[in-house]
């Protein structure tokens, strides 16, 4: 009689094997992907959704867009704000309303769309400014009169009037990315996630939704080449998850959560460099003034007084960030050191009683991230303290970034939201999102104030620093008065990278993928 041995997997043997495998995977460190010097692996906080410069949705998309569609300028990497020419040989402000440019001679579009010309510049800039396009970034070119083509490579950008942020928040952004006129006319629509006629230092080689975006060095790019053969961009929403990925050797560069900065600075992982940069971002609690439950300004003001901003920020960022007082970061014209509402639960209760809002129930929509969730829970507790029941709704990035859109169905049900915007180094880039034109686009509080709009327009052409400071302070005062905003913090930016790479970063820590190099 022979005995046969059963090699089937039982639940017990599976548990034992899984335990052993888990222990082994922790014990054996993995290697960084960039160690061969050809592949850079970075984390982005959201997956790409659109590659059209005129309709981009997030910073990670900005980074990809300006890598694959050559812009006139990009921000300069380093600790001071400035710009670097990419598609132009020369660019110069001739007077308050005229800028001349000359393109580099040999930038080509892929897919057989030929050489980049001044006609393409005219098309791309005027397309974004065209009101019929309804680009949320039309404001970047709000004062554009026309682009005049002088010859194949040269032209003049004519403005209707002086536009102070042109060199800080328009030209060095994807607003100056050049698309192929012929390719776009053939496409007849906006670019989605499939780019046409790429022209940058890198080309989009592959996009695996929610998994990976792969950029490859453009073999036809004849100027300063990108630093890596390939850049792999991994969408990881939660910075804490990204930190674990970095520690496990799966990433070469990532933003960290602000709350992790003290720990990482004190004890950086081997072979890594931790960076802390001043942030231009702003985080706030917004209130949709058109929602039925929040229509009464006394209720919104009550919520302003109910929130203990210091505790919210301390709890969410573990003391690494300080309380912010508006949408304009310190160091820029219009930055404030106080807000018009203080933490006063008694006043909040009185206002709620006056408005007859007993047993008020509100929802708070947040992006599903650890820091936001922590902040939201403190807000929830603060509101409970004044008798308001708050339900937290966590959303993935795909859902969250469409919540307040007028094209969706949810915007009128939106009540409270915890929001964070990044900005460029000009105050107008913060204020532009809260103008009446932006209601239902990025202005989800539906704050609609004509005086605010007039001040915004005035700020765009005012070059006197003192007057600009006054204008932008006044605008934030109007935001306070509306009751729609509780300003929380400007955060700081934390990043960590392998010591085998030199990251290309703006002064505020935002990445410029095309500027990353090997060490």
């Amino acid at each position, binding site marked *: 009689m022979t005995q046969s041995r*059963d090699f089937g*997997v039982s639940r017990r043997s599976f548990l034992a094997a899984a335990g052993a495998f888990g222990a082994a995977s922790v014990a054996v460190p993995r290697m960084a992907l960039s160690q061969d010097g050809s592949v850079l692996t970075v984390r982005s906080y959201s997956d790409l959704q659109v590659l059209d410069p005129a309709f981009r949705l997030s910073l990670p998309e900005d980074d990809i867009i300006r890598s694959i569609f050559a812009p006139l300028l990009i921000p300069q990497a380093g600790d001071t704000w400035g710009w670097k020419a990419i598609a132009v040989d020369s660019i110069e402000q001739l007077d308050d309303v005229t800028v001349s440019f000359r393109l580099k001679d040999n930038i080509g579009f892929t897919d057989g769309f030929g050489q980049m010309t001044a006609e393409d510049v005219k098309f791309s800039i005027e397309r974004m400014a065209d009101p019929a396009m309804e680009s949320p970034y039309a404001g970047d070119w709000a004062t554009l009169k026309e682009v005049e083509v002088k010859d194949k490579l040269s032209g003049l950008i004519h403005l209707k009037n002086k536009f102070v942020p042109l060199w800080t928040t328009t030209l060095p952004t994807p607003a100056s990315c050049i698309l192929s006129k012929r390719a776009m006319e053939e496409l007849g629509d906006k670019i989605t996630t499939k780019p046409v006629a790429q022209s940058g230092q890198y080309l989009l080689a592959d996009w695996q939704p929610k998994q990976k975006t792969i950029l490859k060095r453009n073999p036809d790019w004849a100027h300063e080449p990108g630093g890596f053969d390939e850049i792999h961009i991994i969408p990881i929403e939660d910075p804490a998850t990204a930190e674990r990925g970095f520690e496990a050797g799966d990433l070469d560069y990532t933003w960290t*959560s602000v709350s992790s900065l003290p720990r990482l600075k004190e004890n950086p992982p081997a072979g890594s460099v931790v960076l802390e940069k001043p942030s231009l971002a702003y985080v706030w609690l917004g209130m949709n003034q058109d929602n039925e439950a929040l229509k009464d300004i006394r209720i919104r003001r009550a919520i302003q007084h109910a929130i203990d901003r210091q505790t919210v920020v301390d*709890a969410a960022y573990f003391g690494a960030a300080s309380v912010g007082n508006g949408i304009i970061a310190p160091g820029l014209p219009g930055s404030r050191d106080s807000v018009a509402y203080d933490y006063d639960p008694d006043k909040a209760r009185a206002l709620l009683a006056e408005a007859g809002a007993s047993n008020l129930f509100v929802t708070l929509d947040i992006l599903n991230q*650890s820091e936001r969730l*922590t902040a939201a*829970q403190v807000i929830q*507790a603060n509101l409970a303290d004044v008798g308001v029941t708050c339900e937290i*709704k*966590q959303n993935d990035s795909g859902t969250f970034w469409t919540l307040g859109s007028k094209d969706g169905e949810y915007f009128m049900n939106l009540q409270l939201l915890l929001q964070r915007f990044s900005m460029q180094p000009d105050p107008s880039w913060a204020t532009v999102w809260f103008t009446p034109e932006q209601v239902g686009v990025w202005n989800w509080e539906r704050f609609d104030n004509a005086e605010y709009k007039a001040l915004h327009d005035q700020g765009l052409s005012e070059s006197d620093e003192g007057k600009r400071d006054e204008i932008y302070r006044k605008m934030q005062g109007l935001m306070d008065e509306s009751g729609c905003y509780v300003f929380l913090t400007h955060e700081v930016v934390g990043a960590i990278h392998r010591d085998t790479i030199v990251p290309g970063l703006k002064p505020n820590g935002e990445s410029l993928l095309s500027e990353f190099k090997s060490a």
Partner: protein
Amino acid sequence: MFAAASEDRRQWLKPLVRILREPLGALGIALVILMVGGAALADFLSAFEPNKISPRDRFQGPSLTHLLGTDQLGRDLFSRVLHGGRIALSVALFATAASLIIGIVLGLIAGYGPRWLDNLMILLFDSIKSFPTVMLALALVTLFGPSLTAVVVVVVLVNVPGYARIIRTQTLALKTSEFVTAAQSMGASTARILRHHIMPNVIGPLLILASMDIPVVIAIEAGMSFLGLGVRPPTPSWGAILNDGFTAIRDTPWIAIAGGLPIILTTLGFTFLGETLRDVFDPRLKARG
């Protein structure tokens, strides 16, 4: 009379004694009693209100005041773990029971009903089964928002096809047996045949299977809460505690341990208990592993 009652009690105790004689069975029962007891007595055992935030006390390590330490909002983790146990166990028990009932009913209908209905239901079961659990959870949460109900619905949808298929197979086998034919010839209604003749004969293995599925359900609930798709904050859930701990795992590992340990202990407890139950009541399955 007295002797008969004593005999009954011995009959009832026999399997229990057999389970307790198995080391893993005894350990399983002990762990299950510990976790269920902790959840049931959470209000008495907790010294702190589980949702009360106290930022000044954040990230305190385990101590006599806070047995498992505190989280990033200064909430007492021991209280949150005990109350989180209520969520995990109530979801597990309720969702498993609901899955069992629906699975049994659908399985009986598929197995005893006409062929076309059987084919249709098998198609339905296989369609549901072919959906990855996480995808299904994401789709439901996108439609209805994260909630405890969403967790229960996901678990029921995931479990029902498996249970229904088992019941259907056994019903098909019993449908033509002599005692069923006899009942039919005596004029018994379909409902009576299903309730009194078929169900008692098919339900035993399913109960064992269900007890072994409880840890899977607990893992689903914890997983969904970890991902922010389960219970809404600030309701304590083991998955949510694990997520809180994950953020600061290097500096304050006790939070992740507080969230992870009960999941491991409960999973092991129910797994050991389920496997011992299976070994005791159906030794044939043991041979299959």
